[in-house]
């Protein structure tokens, strides 16, 4: 591996270099195979402790991190804090300090407020993985999306990606916009004017377009990402009704006619069937929603491995198959 990921934390995609992202994806690829074995476990993080500190409810992401840690032989502990620090009486930092006193090797943090993982990273000692903070970033989601795209399209560079829906409140959209544009894709975002403000075009230097109609964003797209309507993040009405949303911004089969012929459809889940995505698409052949979930484990294994101090010898040779030819080919494409 020519590029190393030498950061202490994974807080967001925005601050990463393209080479670091590629290295994370390459590492994830090597881990993907472990989940296909009968004995789904390697000793890479044996004796290490990973704490999943979730201040916001989550099934998918928490389970994914937990399985990833366990498949690397780390001891995974889940801590769910259902209320915000203020109402609970203990502050975010006190909670984290208490956990740090138990010497974890990595803390995975999910929080409803943007910046909480950054604050923890600044104050504490343990490596922090951002598992989603408010409307800010969700870096492992973007990585698993990229891994899925690479798996099916063989590359990221040069692809046209449409992101549809509530971009304003979406940490998934932000992380994906950063990642995809850094790796050379063109991203078009579209949704209701209240959720896709025109200023979004300034989020990144190049490669991002803001459209009003989802049809315009989907035109010629190789990848269509549909965002979840996050009712819990909307403090007031951003659109008149679910019915109207489904009619104007929900992805339906006819939209895909103008996409690239082999376009793939993704969704970070959980899906609101019949609202942002029609069931025919969610369950159809172009949908990669479950592949995304599978790749999520591989990506999180890679992230934990790189941050929680796994050493290369632990995953070498017989314990972990060397990379397949496919990976080598992909490298050429990246140039």
């Amino acid at each position: 591996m020519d590029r190393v990921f030498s950061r202490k934390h994974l807080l967001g995609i925005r601050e990463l270099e393209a080479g670091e992202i590629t290295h994370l994806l390459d590492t994830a690829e090597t881990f993907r195979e472990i989940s296909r074995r009968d004995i789904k476990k390697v000793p890479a993080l044996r004796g290490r402790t990973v704490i999943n500190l979730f201040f916001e409810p989550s099934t998918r992401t928490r389970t994914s991190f937990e399985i990833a840690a366990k498949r690397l032989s780390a001891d995974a502990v889940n801590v769910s804090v259902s209320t915000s620090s203020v109402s609970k009486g203990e502050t975010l930092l006190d909670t984290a300090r208490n956990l740090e006193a138990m010497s974890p090797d990595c803390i995975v943090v999910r929080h409803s407020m943007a910046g909480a993982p950054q604050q923890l990273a600044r104050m504490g000692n343990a490596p922090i993985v951002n598992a989603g903070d408010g409307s800010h970033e969700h870096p492992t989601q973007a990585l698993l999306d990229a891994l899925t795209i690479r798996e099916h399209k063989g590359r990221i560079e040069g692809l046209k990606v449409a992101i549809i829906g509530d971009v304003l409140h979406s940490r998934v959209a932000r992380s994906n916009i950063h990642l995809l544009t850094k790796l050379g894709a063109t991203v078009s975002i579209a949704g209701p004017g209240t959720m896709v403000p025109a200023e979004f075009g300034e989020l990144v230097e190049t490669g991002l377009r803001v459209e009003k109609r989802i049809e315009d964003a989907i035109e010629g797209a190789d990848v269509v990402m549909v965002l979840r309507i996050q009712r819990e993040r909307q403090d007031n009405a951003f659109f008149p009704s679910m019915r109207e949303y489904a009619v104007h911004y929900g992805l339906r089969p006819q939209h895909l006619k103008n996409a690239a012929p082999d376009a793939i459809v993704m969704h970070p889940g959980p899906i609101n069937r019949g609202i942002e995505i029609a069931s025919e698409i969610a369950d159809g052949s172009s949908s990669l929603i479950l592949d995304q979930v599978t790749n999520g484990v591989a990506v999180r294994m890679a992230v934990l491995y790189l941050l929680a101090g796994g050493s290369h010898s632990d995953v070498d040779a017989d314990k972990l198959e060397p990379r397949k030819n496919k990976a080598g080919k992909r490298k050429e494409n990246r140039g």
Partner: protein
Amino acid sequence: MKILIANGYLVDPAQGVNAGKDLLIEDGRVVGLLERGREVPAGAEVFDATGLIVAPGFIDLHTHLREPGQEYKETIASGASAAVAGGWATICAMPNTDPVNDSPAVTRFIIEQAERAQLANVFPIGALTKGSEGKELAEMGEMKNAGIVAVSDDGRPVPNAGIMRRAMEYAHGFGLTVVDHCQDASLSLGGVMHEGRWSLILGLKGMPAAAEDVHAIRDCVLAKLTGAAVHIAHVSSRGSVDAVRRAKEMGLPVTCEVAPHHWTLIDEALADYDTNTKMSPPLRSRDHVEALLEGLRDGTIDAIATDHAPHHADEKALEFDQAPFGITGLETAVGLAFDLVHQGIIDLERLVRLCSTNPARIFGLKDRGTLTENAHADVTILDPACEWVFDVATSKSKSRNTPFHGRSMKGAAVATIVGGRLVYLNPDYSRVTDAKHRQASAK
């Protein structure tokens, strides 16, 4: 007690003085300006101000002291101590204490506490509406008798234009300036930073500049309707500076102030989610900062005010969304204001206008903001060349919430005289000498 401030360069725009002069003060009042090198009046102590600027005492129109109610953040004494250390001889205390200063009893309490502290002059600002709830008018007349110098619902701007109109009309009857924190809550609700590229990057809810603009424009329109003197607090947006500029062109009694952090920092400073960059109005984008500098240059902006807003470290250690708005400012404002002088945006004379002459005029503070004969002997002594680094550990405030810790500054207030008493002297400037020394060092 008689003090001769000798060999300094005296800047007093109110009387058009911008020259090397000695200043004689006695018993809390200015005796007069003397030609340099004259004999030291009998019994006078000499403050050797060689190489220093002597200005009328600086007046901060916008200070939050947390007493009564939140003494763990700041007391009147600790705030006044920070004030004089920062060169402010006078501070005007915003009414958002607990209880709110909406009654003569609270007003008198603040004044008594300030008298006990014997540091800065502390002039209370009364609430515009009872409890600053924006519903019923507060007892402005009674508070004026007790000593308030202006009225404001700072931090909780009156949303209802009809009530604001009545409040302005009523305040106008007592000659009280209405100070308004311009922010339309329906546009800014839930916001924690400036709305723009950086709020989108950080995923934090934005407060659009438009929230400030529409409110400032509303207030200018109401100033025209009511004839009341309206002072727009801490302008931070291009739109509100433009609104004040237009109002002045129309001859309306509208003034405004700017806080140093708003021209010094931009919203990008929030990139690490440091809660010491969270304040309201928020740090804005570069375009807005340009507008503030234009306003300072062309005189649209009348005053520099600190918006000193102390908060305990534990409160600022919360999540960005949860942390309270505000930063301390009394000890950093003058250093940051000197940046404007060194960058050529304003000259020294204008600096004194912004920090003393105009604030006195805006709140109608009689015999202050000038060093004419018989004015109050409030003096701020400045060293434009003083190079220093702000260390929050040395702050006199009880709170530590500043984004300027470790910042290099050039230019400082090195001594502050309030009511004829030297209440602050930078330890590096031991200039109080006797007459003999002064005569020896005089040209």
